[in-house]
């Protein structure tokens, strides 16, 4: 693979922002803008992610800048951490490459009324029970099976469909991004193959970087906002990371196949085939938008059904109904998505298509789309770190709307390739190392654990520091891992 030359063209704007000037390449329509500090930029080296920021800057109808969050790294199509808004009224396009295969991959945080001491003597049993009960890993199906007609309704209605079935309550709906349902979904546009892949995977974690992690709040940075989110020092929480499973992968695949030859038909030249796209107001663009929304609603339901199974495990281990354990949803947020949102561009209100590829929505206090319970403080933003160090809860920041189309980082970002991580793990026992740090890690694959070892990731504290200082989202609470199950 070609390494990037663009790091030499980076211009430092201030201590958290770097510009890739439009003049760096003759096909860029707007500047690239990377949020990072000096160390994160240095660590990026000549990673092709910067080329990907520039590639996205060539998309028709792109507004403002082609953005990258500080967890930026090399992806396919967009970089991971990439944000781009396009204007349908200006020939703007929608690209499956700006969403990814795992449509509405995201995270959800559950709080409990337990504190760390309540886990004494029961943590290992809890983690083993989670591993036994919650399906993780390759090719695992779950206990829930949906017939075609049910799947179509689930993809149209999202989490409210599960509420009708008694598998979600009012707070589960209210505390999801978009109320757990992106409107105007087109489940009828989803292929039979995608439906087949999705029939028995709703409620399964998958593998790769997906997980269910039991954590404890080990630092409160903003007491008022933490209280609004129901979080306090010493409290046990559960963080869930998964997406739309095989159904979403197939929707993306079908869309890319349908888009073969389409960009050329609209006179769009692309620097990367993975950026295949269509104008938002075209039949092809609308078809992808509809099927993508349907897959996104499936993903909200997937995380809801994982949460239900987590609740069942806690009930068994602690011998109390989950409601009495306070196992409530703090928030569920998407980090691979494209959504139509209102934003100001040069003082003009526009309806834009905001692509977030490994980036999290981060709406500030007062925004109409923040749930009632949090509107006075802002939207919760969950940033998983790695399984050895920490994760963060942030809140949508004052500058997010003006600077990043209401977006923030989505994780620590990988520092090592999977190949390099495997090499680094040779001769070591990652599971034992984590145990020595007080983290019980269980995975259905040892290789998965080696590839996901803490050193494979950047330091999440540093990444969070950048978005905090940039005002995209600000620190609320830090969560330390106690135990994790992975695929």
């Amino acid at each position, binding site marked *: *693979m070609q390494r990037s030359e663009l790091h030499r063209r980076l211009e430092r704007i201030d201590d958290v922002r770097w510009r890739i000037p439009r003049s760096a390449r003759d096909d860029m329509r707007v500047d690239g803008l990377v949020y990072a500090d000096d160390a994160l930029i240095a660590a990026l080296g000549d*990673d092709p*992610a910067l080329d990907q920021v520039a590639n996205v800057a060539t998309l028709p109808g792109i507004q403002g800048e082609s953005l990258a969050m500080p967890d930026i*790294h*090399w*992806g*396919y*199509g967009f970089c*991971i951490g990439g944000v781009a808004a396009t204007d349908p009224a200006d020939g703007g396009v929608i690209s499956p*490459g700006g969403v*990814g*295969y*795992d449509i509405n991959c995201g995270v959800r945080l559950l709080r409990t009324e337990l504190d760390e001491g309540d886990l004494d003597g029961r943590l290992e049993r809890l983690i083993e029970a989670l591993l036994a009960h919650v399906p993780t*890993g*390759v*090719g695992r199906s779950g206990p829930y099976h949906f017939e075609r007609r049910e799947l179509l309704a689930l993809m149209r209605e999202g989490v409210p469909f599960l509420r009708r079935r008694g598998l979600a309550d009012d707070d589960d709906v209210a505390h999801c991004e978009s109320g757990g349902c992106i409107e105007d979904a087109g489940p009828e546009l989803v292929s039979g*193959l995608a439906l*087949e*892949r999705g029939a028995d995977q709703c409620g399964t974690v*998958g*593998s*790769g970087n997906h997980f269910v992690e039991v954590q404890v709040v080990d630092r409160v940075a903003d007491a008022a906002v933490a209280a609004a989110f129901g979080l306090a020092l010493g409290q046990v929480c559960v963080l869930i990371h998964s997406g739309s499973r*095989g159904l979403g*992968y*197939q929707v*993306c*695949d*079908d869309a*890319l*196949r*349908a*888009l*073969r*030859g*389409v960009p*050329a038909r609209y006179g769009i030249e692309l620097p*990367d*085939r*993975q950026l*295949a796209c269509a104008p938002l107001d075209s039949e092809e663009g609308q078809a992808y938008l509809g099927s993508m929304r349907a897959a996104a609603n499936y993903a909200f339901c997937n995380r809801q059904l994982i949460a239900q199974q987590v609740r069942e495990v806690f009930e068994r281990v602690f011998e109390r109904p989950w409601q009495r354990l306070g196992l409530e949803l703090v928030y569920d947020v998407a980090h691979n998505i494209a959504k139509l949102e209102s934003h100001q561009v040069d003082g003009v209100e526009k309806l834009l298509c905001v692509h977030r590829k490994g980036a999290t929505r981060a709406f500030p206090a007062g925004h109409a789309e923040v749930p009632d319970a949090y509107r006075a403080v802002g939207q919760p933003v969950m940033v998983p770190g790695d399984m050895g160090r920490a994760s963060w809860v942030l809140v949508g920041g004052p500058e997010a709307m003006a600077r990043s189309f209401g977006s923030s980082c989505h994780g620590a970002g*990988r520092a*090592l*390739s*999977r*190949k*390099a991580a495997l090499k680094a793990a040779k001769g070591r026992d990652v599971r034992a190392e984590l145990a020595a740090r007080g983290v019980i890690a269980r995975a*259905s*694959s*040892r*290789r*998965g654990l080696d590839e996901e070892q803490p050193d494979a990731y950047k330091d999440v504290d540093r990444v969070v520091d950048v978005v905090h200082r940039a005002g995209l989202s600000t620190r609320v609470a830090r969560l330390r891992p106690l135990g994790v199950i992975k*695929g």
Partner: protein
Amino acid sequence: MPWQLVDHTADVGLLIEAPTREALLEEAAQALMALIVEDPASVEERETLDFELAADGPAAGPAADPADLLFDWLQTLLVAVELRRVLLTRFQVRLEGRGLRASASGERIDPARHRLAHEVKAITYHGLAVRATRDGWQAEVIVDI
């Protein structure tokens, strides 16, 4: 080594080399399976699946090129693994027109004998390339993990 892992930060890159295009498609399939199961040698040949790919599917754009065919072939195998719950270990590919016919032998996934490594989410178009070299054919493909 007919195939090797190539560094990619988030996912996995594969570099595959073979004397013919048919062998390239067979080696690419082997490489894909080696990502899915930790020890491909643990997979026995108990059943054979047949595949037929037309280069121009119903939604295809202009004439498919060798890279598109590689993409479609690997994607077809991923779906077979997921829906039929099989692991495949031996492949025979025959190019036919602009498409292919293939057979693949393997067995159903048995958690007691097969240690699974990755769920490969998808094949990507990013950096996808199939090219003729002095010694035969070479392919580059990045898969989403």
